[in-house]
């Protein structure tokens, strides 16, 4: 009779891309070599993952920033502690940009009042919620046009941002929103021809994904985090995993980078229905 080991430390992650299996399978083997019995469960979307986390189906979640807020608020309502134990170096101090065509008449973001602004998926913090909130804070009411690719994956998939960028180049929207790194990436891949766009605005820095633990987590959680933080890009066994997951080093989690997203979620009521559902 085969049995699932009961003391395995389980991580929940969203399968936004087939490479996710490769990444966590690699982590599983690496943790096993370092004495931690680690395994993972994949979900097709963050809402299902957060609900499962609240039900105690795994011990640590690899959460998008929006999923972090969903988990934190739901845990708070239940009187359960919620902690961000680690994040990638590349999750810290990101910004989002509002881009227009170089020949557009807009000089400041205020000029975008009433303009068609292409954003990513409705649940994308970086390409939708944060830039729209930032515009709204400045009193700029825009006609947001969503490019919903893989809703439920919180914009992890770049498709929505790229679709919005292409719509900008085709003149179907007057501006588009994207994460700062994609400005160079879209230029490099030719989505933005050289000199074809301008950056009209840039949000203040914010943080992205984190490893979320609810309540006591797991007896080996301390060791898990310690090992995570020790992962070095110089270690040939680890480098491919870090490359695939898009980081050079893990950092301890911090919360100050989520303030803007908390406000955005309040403004747009993005997760109200979810919180009502999970009670």
């Amino acid at each position: 009779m085969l049995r699932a080991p009961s003391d395995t430390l389980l991580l929940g992650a969203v399968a936004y891309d087939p490479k996710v299996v490769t990444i966590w399978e690699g982590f599983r083997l690496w943790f096993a070599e370092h004495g931690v019995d680690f395994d993972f469960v994949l979900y097709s979307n963050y809402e299902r993952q957060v609900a499962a986390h609240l039900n105690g189906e795994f011990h640590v979640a690899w959460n998008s920033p929006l999923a972090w807020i969903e988990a934190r608020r739901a845990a708070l309502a239940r009187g359960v502690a919620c902690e961000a134990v680690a994040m990638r170096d590349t999750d810290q101090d990101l910004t989002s940009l509002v881009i227009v065509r170089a020949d557009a008449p807009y000089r400041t973001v205020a000029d975008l009042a009433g303009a068609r602004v292409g954003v990513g998926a409705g649940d994308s913090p970086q390409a939708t919620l944060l830039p729209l909130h930032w515009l709204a804070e400045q009193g700029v009411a825009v006609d947001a046009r969503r490019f919903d690719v893989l809703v439920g994956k919180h914009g992890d998939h770049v498709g929505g941002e790229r679709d919005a960028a292409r719509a900008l180049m085709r003149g179907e929207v007057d501006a588009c929103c994207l994460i700062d790194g994609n400005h160079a990436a879209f230029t490099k891949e030719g989505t933005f021809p050289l000199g074809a766009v301008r950056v009209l605005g840039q949000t203040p820095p914010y943080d992205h994904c984190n490893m979320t633990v609810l309540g006591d987590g797991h007896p080996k959680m301390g060791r898990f985090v310690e090992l995570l933080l020790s992962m070095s890009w110089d270690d040939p066994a680890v480098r491919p995993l870090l490359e695939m997951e898009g980081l050079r080093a893990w950092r301890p989690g911090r919360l100050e980078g989520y303030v803007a997203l908390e406000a955005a979620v309040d403004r747009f009521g993005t997760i109200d229905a979810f919180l009502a559902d999970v009670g």
Partner: protein
Amino acid sequence: MSPSSPPTVDLGALPLAAGGHLLVRRALRALPDGARLTVVGSDATLALDLRAWARGSGLPMEGERTLVRTPAAEGRWRGAERAGGASPEGVVAAPSPRWGLALRGAAVEAGSPPLHFPLATRAEVWTDEAARMYRKAAAAQWDPASLPWDTVIDHPPEVEDAVVQVMTYLVENEVAALLVPARFLAQVHPHFREVLQVLAVQAADEARHIEVFSRRALHLRDVPGLSTAGGQASLATLLAEPDFALSTFLLSVLGEGSFLTLLWFLAEHAPDPLTRAIARATATDEARHVAFGLAHLGAHLAAEPDLRVRLVNAVTRRHQALAGTAGLNEEVHDALLLLAAGGWEHARLAAGAARVTRLASDMDEGRQQRLKILGFDAAEAEAMSSLHTRNFM
């Protein structure tokens, strides 16, 4: 540069995504760890692109435009390992599986996946002669179209039938001679690049030989001759030999060695200038294959003297495996005789028979010579040669 003025790289109007990052990287390479590099330029998005680039590269920043040089600046070069030396002298005894397909001497990034090539030691495959042999082989490639295909052929029809039969036999031998090196080619660690190249050009030689022999077979006829059970059984034992050294020994030294004698026989005695020209051109190639086999087996024997016993056993084993077969089939033997006779006159047939008898003893003599080159004494060479397949290859 003074401590008060940190190094600066000026991108002018060049955007970071349009090649500016190369200038930044170059400037970073020239600096020691801990040094600061300030990036200046007039591109409107330089600061934000630089920030995103630094984040992705794992480089800390100070302020909007200044990068801190850390080991992360070395990127994938960090911890990379040299795959031996670039020149043939840089060949190592046992290259790492992680060097994989890399050019010998290249810096291989840490964490490259291991590729397990079954033939991965210098002792098994290497010869210092490989580079020279490859260059010689590459320079000696010839165009099948350059052969005298429009030569008038006016010998008796039965002599042409004999030529067709011999060509039919040659093609199946050359198919074996193509498959064997091609199979080992895929097993040799690419660190031994020159050996791969020799085997590849050898396979290309055989492809060309298959072309000219089959073209000659069908030059004046619609169908080829007979393929015999004994011939195929003999060649099957070559295909079945899994050991590179033993296979080289059986195929290149003994088989192709005997084949070489056969091709020179055809170059001299074939009834028409076209067949003679084909035999000459292909014999030149086969001579190189024999030379390579001798060179790397000689090196292998020097490194591993016990190989001698395995070579003797391989010949004996093959002899026993073929004991129940007919050996060189009557059709090929008779075709060679008629081909060497060139006609039906008694005197010609007698001369043809004498030439074929001489061919067998020339092959035996050649094999013994090559065995002596490998260090076997006269008695061993004579005994081993006598055990070689009667099917020549």
